[in-house]
């Protein structure tokens, strides 16, 4: 057990590192997206700033900082300023409970590779992401313009609707692990089937839940094909129409940070977290952080791939899909998982 002072120092160090890595990942996620979508559309993507355009995120950041911070005269100021902050704060908070590796001992301090291990980790993430809706909804309302309000309303309706399927798809995993703690959920996924298929939840009967999660997560993060809240052709830019400079960049950061959270959660819940493949050289199996980052990267790549491939839904299709297809499927998956676990026990 650590003393309270060491505990605080260790926590602060872990928080700073996690935030630094997360924000860098957000910046390079944007770069990856521009590059990959560019190649999908037979273009080069960013190439001018640095080798392979690698310094492009830095240039973008500088540009956002030096742009004029315009506040339109018709907005409701306190909430107009608070909304992007709320969005970014809630997007960054959920990284606190995500475990990226097992316990390590550095300089006599024994600590998990996770900012904090709470026994309701999954509920914390769901709660924080459900609060993230306020950033979008309040931005739409406080901007005092038609496009923003419609975009904000669409976004909040969409996020509330898909949150239900998202939550229900996770309950199957919870039943299998018997815990809300993300660390225990990962620990429950150890071992293999027949020696070569890892016992991850994805291969352990939760494949339907994984695809429900995938689709609901795309809708939660307002990404293609569910990016109705910012449909350019109808709503200019949706809820952030009236935002410019750093305030706009904060919404942008929040969107990509949410994508990364969703990817982390997917790899923790369905892909065995930091556990590697059960075959291959031994040194490769013993690199927890490498495996975790690889899984998150694959998930992010699929995100971008989908964006470069699919068109956008119509709004009534989006609602019908969420309520009439995903929700019944999620409930069916939950009932079947519960039955099988109950029969086995």
């Amino acid at each position: 057990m650590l003393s309270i002072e060491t505990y605080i120092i260790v926590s602060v160090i872990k928080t700073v590192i996690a935030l630094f890595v997360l924000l860098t990942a957000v910046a390079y996620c944007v770069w990856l997206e521009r590059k990959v979508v560019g190649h999908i559309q037979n273009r080069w993507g960013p190439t001018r700033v640095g080798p392979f355009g690698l310094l492009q995120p830095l240039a973008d950041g500088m540009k956002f900082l030096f742009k004029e911070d315009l506040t339109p005269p018709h907005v409701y100021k306190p909430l107009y300023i608070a909304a992007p902050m709320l969005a970014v704060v809630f997007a960054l908070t959920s990284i606190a409970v995500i475990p990226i590796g097992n316990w390590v001992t550095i300089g006599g301090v024994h600590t998990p590779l996770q900012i904090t291990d709470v026994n309701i980790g999954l509920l914390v993430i769901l709660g924080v992401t459900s609060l993230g809706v306020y950033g979008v909804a309040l931005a739409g309302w406080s901007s005092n313009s038609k496009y923003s309000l419609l975009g904000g309303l669409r976004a909040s309706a969409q996020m509330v609707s898909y949150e239900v399927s998202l939550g229900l798809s996770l309950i199957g995993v919870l039943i299998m692990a018997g815990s809300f703690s993300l660390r225990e959920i990962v620990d429950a996924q150890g071992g293999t089937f027949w020696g070569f298929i890892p016992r991850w939840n994805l291969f352990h009967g939760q494949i339907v839940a994984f695809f429900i999660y995938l689709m609901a997560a795309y809708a939660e993060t307002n990404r293609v094909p569910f990016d109705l809240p910012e449909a350019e052709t109808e709503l200019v830019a949706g809820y952030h129409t009236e935002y410019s400079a750093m305030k706009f960049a904060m919404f942008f950061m929040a969107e990509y940070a949410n994508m990364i959270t969703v990817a982390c959660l997917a790899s923790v819940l369905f892909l065995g977290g930091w556990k590697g493949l059960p075959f291959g050289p031994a040194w490769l199996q013993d690199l927890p952080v490498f495996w975790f980052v690889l899984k998150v990267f694959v998930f992010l790549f699929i995100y971008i791939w989908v964006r470069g491939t699919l068109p956008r839904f119509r709004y009534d299709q989006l609602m019908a899909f969420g309520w009439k297809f995903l929700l019944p499927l999620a409930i069916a998956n939950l009932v079947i998982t519960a039955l099988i676990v109950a029969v086995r026990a």
Partner: protein
Amino acid sequence: MQPVATTFFFYFLSAVTVISGIAVITRRNPVHSALALIVALLGQAGLYLMLYAPFVAGVQIILYAGGIMVLFLFVIMLVNIERAQKEEQFNKQWIVGIVAALALGVLFVLVYMKGKGLFPQTVAQLPEGENTQGIAMLLYRDYMFAFEIASLLLLVAIIGAVVMAKKRI
């Protein structure tokens, strides 16, 4: 790990809850009231955490602060706020209000006076990890009937809302 500065956190969270609770009924702009209510609910969630009820706290945030209040805000954003601000904020039933407030006040004072007898002397040390299981046991085994009645009531409310909203079913 032992909890730290519990007294400070208790008073801090209580102050947040009470002050934002007062703000809910005194703000003229309904959006501000809704936001204050969200803060009050979050403060309550913090208090639940201090009572070693992490599951209740999490559900409080997900359902009330993150779900129901979004729908409240959703409706309020569609209402014409200029008109709402001109309407009278308090209605004229202050006699009933005072009687209710007095009754509640007397109740509070009585509970405070008798407090030592009503509550156990020592705080029960609850096992931290078993809160969720404990709630599940209570809901689905000991109070199954009451729980099912509550869910039936909610179902009636849902069907009623659909019947009222749709002209043709």
